[in-house]
C-alpha cells in the first residue's frame, strides 16, 4: 500500500505544462440588493443587531458599515470574551449568509485551511482505471508516444472532483457569499499569516495544479485576535482595525437584558456594577462579558432577586477562573456588594 500521497510531490511528478485553468467565472463585486437595505445606515445596523440580541456600540456598528461597504476585512481585537466571535455570528445571521469559521492554531497549514486532494479517491480511481490505461496506450508505439498519450489524460486526476475544499476555499467559492471568520489569528504561525495576505487583499488564491481561484462573491471577512502576539504590519495594512474594549456599565446592562431577558432590573444593575468594580482590580483574568452573562443565568437559576455577600461568595467561581483572583475579590466582597446595592438604589 503506498504511503500518503502528497499533493505537491505528485504535482511535481505529473505536472503538465499549460495555461492555468480557471475554476470559476470572473468575480462580480458589488453588494446585492438584499444587503443594501440592511447596510443602509449605521443606525439600521445597530437596530438590526439588537433584534438578534447582539447589542453593539456605535463604533462597532460603524466598523461593520465601513467594512461591508468598502469590502475590506475587519480585524477585531480585544480582551477575551467581549463578543468578537459573536460579532461575526451576528453579522452572518443579520445578512442571511452562511458563516464559515476557521479556528487558527499553531501548525495550521494550507492543507487544513485551504484545500486538500482526496488522495484515497485518486488512488481508487487510478486502480479502477488501470485497465483502461492499457486500452489508451494500446495503439501507441514506443515509450515517447505512450508518454505523449498519457500527458493528455493526466490532468483528470487534478480536477475539482478530487479537491477537498477547506474553510478558505469554501468561503471563496460560496455561491451566495459568506461570512468568513478567521478566529484567533494570533494563535497561528507567521507563515500562515503571510499566506493569508493574498486572500485578504485580492480575494483569490492560487492552487498550483489547477490555477487561480477567484471569489465568486466577495466574502465578508472577520479576523479576531486576542493579542497574544502582535500581528504583522502587512496584515494590519490590509484590514480595518476595530478594538473592542470591555463595555461600560450602561451597554453591559443592555447586553444582559438582551441575553437574559428574565432577569429582574434591580439584580441586573447590581450585577453589572459588581462586575465593573471587579474589572477595576488587578486580576490575572478579568471577567468577560460572556462570564457576566453566565453569572446572570446562574443567579436567575438560584432565584436571587438581589446581590448579597453570601450569594456572591458562592457564585464567584462562575466569573473568576483563578484561585488567586477569587481570593482577592473575596476580601473586598462586602464593599463591592454595598456599592452595587447603592448603584441600584440610585437608579431606582
Amino acid at each position, binding site marked *: 500500500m*503506498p504511503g500518503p500521497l*502528497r499533493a505537491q510531490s*505528485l504535482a*511535481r511528478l505529473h505536472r503538465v505544462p499549460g495555461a492555468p485553468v480557471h475554476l470559476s467565472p470572473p468575480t462580480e463585486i458589488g453588494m446585492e440588493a438584499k444587503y443594501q437595505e440592511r447596510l443602509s445606515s449605521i443606525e439600521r445596523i445597530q437596530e438590526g443587531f439588537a433584534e438578534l440580541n447582539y447589542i453593539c456600540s456605535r463604533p462597532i456598528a*460603524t466598523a461593520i458599515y*465601513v467594512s461591508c461597504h*468598502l469590502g*475590506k476585512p475587519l480585524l477585531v481585537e480585544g480582551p477575551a470574551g467581549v463578543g468578537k466571535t459573536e460579532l461575526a455570528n451576528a453579522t452572518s445571521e443579520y445578512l442571511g449568509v452562511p458563516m464559515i469559521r476557521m479556528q487558527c492554531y499553531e501548525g495550521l497549514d494550507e492543507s487544513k485551511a485551504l484545500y486538500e486532494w482526496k488522495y484515497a479517491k485518486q488512488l481508487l480511481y487510478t486502480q479502477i482505471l488501470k485497465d483502461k490505461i492499457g486500452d489508451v496506450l494500446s495503439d501507441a508505439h514506443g515509450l515517447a508516444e505512450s508518454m505523449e498519450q498519457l500527458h493528455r489524460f493526466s490532468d483528470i486526476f487534478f480536477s475539482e472532483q478530487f479537491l477537498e475544499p477547506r474553510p478558505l476555499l469554501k468561503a471563496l467559492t460560496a455561491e451566495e457569499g459568506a461570512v468568513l471568520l478567521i478566529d484567533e489569528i494570533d494563535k497561528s504561525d507567521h507563515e500562515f499569516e503571510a499566506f493569508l495576505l493574498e486572500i485578504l487583499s485580492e480575494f483569490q488564491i492560487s492552487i498550483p495544479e489547477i490555477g487561480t481561484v477567484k471569489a465568486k462573491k466577495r466574502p465578508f471577512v472577520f479576523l479576531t485576535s486576542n493579542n497574544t502576539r502582535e500581528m504583522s504590519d502587512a496584515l494590519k495594512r490590509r484590514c480595518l*482595525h476595530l*478594538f473592542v474594549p470591555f463595555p461600560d456599565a450602561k451597554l453591559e446592562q443592555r447586553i444582559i437584558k438582551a441575553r437574559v431577558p428574565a432577569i429582574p432590573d434591580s439584580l441586573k444593575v447590581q450585577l453589572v456594577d459588581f462586575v465593573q468594580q471587579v474589572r477595576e482590580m488587578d486580576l490575572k483574568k478579568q471577567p468577560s462579558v460572556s462570564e457576566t452573562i453566565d453569572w446572570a443565568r446562574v443567579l436567575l437559576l438560584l432565584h436571587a432577586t438581589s446581590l448579597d455577600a453570601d450569594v456572591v461568595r458562592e457564585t464567584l467561581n462562575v466569573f473568576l477562573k483563578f484561585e488567586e483572583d477569587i481570593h482577592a475579590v473575596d476580601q473586598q466582597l462586602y464593599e463591592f456588594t454595598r456599592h452595587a446595592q447603592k448603584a441600584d438604589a440610585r437608579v431606582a
Partner: protein
Amino acid sequence: MERTFTNFLQALRGAEVRVSVAETLDAMETAELMGWGDREALKYALSLALAKTPDEKEIFDATFDQFFRFDSFRGRDGETPEANSGEELEGKAGDLLDMVQRRDETALALAMQQAAREVNVENIRFFTQRGLFTQRILGAMGIEAIDAAISAAVRSGEGGAGQAGQLREARSYLFEQVRDFVEQQLSLQGAGASAELREDRLRRSRLGNLDRRDQEQMKVIVEKIARRLVALHSRRKKLRNRGVIDIRKTMRRNYGSGGILFDLEWKQRKIDKPRVMAICDVSGSVAAVARFLLQFLYELHELLHDIRSFAFSGKLIETSSFFKDKQADDAVAAIMDRVGFMPTDYGESLSNFREKFLNDVDKKTAVIILGDGRSNFTDPRTDILKEIHDRSKRVIWLNPEPPPLWGTGDSEMRRYAPYCDLVRECNTLNHLERVVGDLLQVAQKAA
C-alpha cells in the same frame, strides 16, 4: 478638503502613528463613504482605517480632536455669532476692520483659516517659528487696515481716543486668537519633528555622557530598536519543502510504496538562535555602555537561545540572575555594589571566567566582551582569550574608546584583538544597534 486631509495624516505621522500609503487610500475611501457631516461617525470610521493598535487608537483620538477643533473666536462672553453669508468673506483686508468691530466670530475664524492656508502654516516645525507664522497670518488677514484705523483714530484727536482704545483692544484680541491657533498647529505638526530630532541626537551621543533626564527617553529608544530587530529577524526558523531533495530520506520513506517515489523528502535547514555570553567591564565609563548592551540583549530574549551575562572589574561574577528578576536600573545598581569600584584587572577576571564558566562555552556560543582593555599594567592573559576563541563560535569585542586610543597607555586592546573575530568601537546607541543586528544576522547565515 484633500489638503486638510493630507495635513491631518501628516499630523498623525508626527504623533508616531504609522500610516502607509495603502492606509491613506483606505482612509480617503472611508471618508468619502461616511461624508464629512457626522463628526463622531467619521472619527470612528477613520480610526478603523488608520490606527491599528490600542495605543495608536488613543493617539488618533487625541490628534483628531485637536486637529478638527474649531473653537477659535468663540466669543468670550459665549454669545453665538450671527450667521454670515459667503459673499462677505470674499474681500478681506477692508472687511477685517469691519469684522473685528462687529465681533463677527465665524467670519474671523474663516478668514484666519484662509490666511493660514495661504502662508502654509502646516510647515511649522519648531517653536522658534511661532512669532513668524503669527505675523504672517495676521499680515495675510490684513492687519494693516486695523493699524491704519488706529493711527487715524489717534490723529483725529479728542473724539478718536475712545475709538482708538476700542480698536487696540480688538487688535490684541485678534492677535491672541491667531497666536493660539499657531500654537495649536505647532503642537500638531511640530511634535513629530522635534521628537525625531531629539531621538536622532540621543542615538548619536556618547552613552557615557548622557544626562540623567535623557535616560528615560533612552530606554524607550532601546525598546523601539529592539522591537524592530525582533521583527526583522523573527522569520521562519526552518526552511521546509524547498530547494534540494534529500534522496536518502526519500528512498527510505518510500520503501512502503515499493520504491516508487510518491512522497518527497527535502533537505531541511534549521536556523539556530545564537547563544550569547556577554562579559562586561563595569568600571568607570564602560559601565554606561554595558548597561545599555545588557538591556538590549534582554529585550531580545525572544530571538536569542540563551543569554548569560557576566560583570567584572577586579574580579568576575555571573549577573544573569540580576536581570531576570529586576529592572535594568536596579540590576545595574546591584551589580555595581558587588563588583564595581575596584581597580580593573582583565587577567584576573578572565581567569575567573575560565575556572567557572569556560566549560559552558560551546560552538554555538557568541561571546561578547565589552571593555576598554585598560588593565592597570597587569598581565592581560591573552592565552585565556585564545582559549575562549577556540571553543566559541565568535568572540566580539566592543570597545567604547575610539580606535586611535587603543594600545595607548595601559590599554591592551592591540594584544587582545588577534583573538577576536570582530573588534568594534561602540559608544553610542547606533553602534550598539549595528553590533546586535550583526550578531543576529551572522547567526542566520551560518546555519
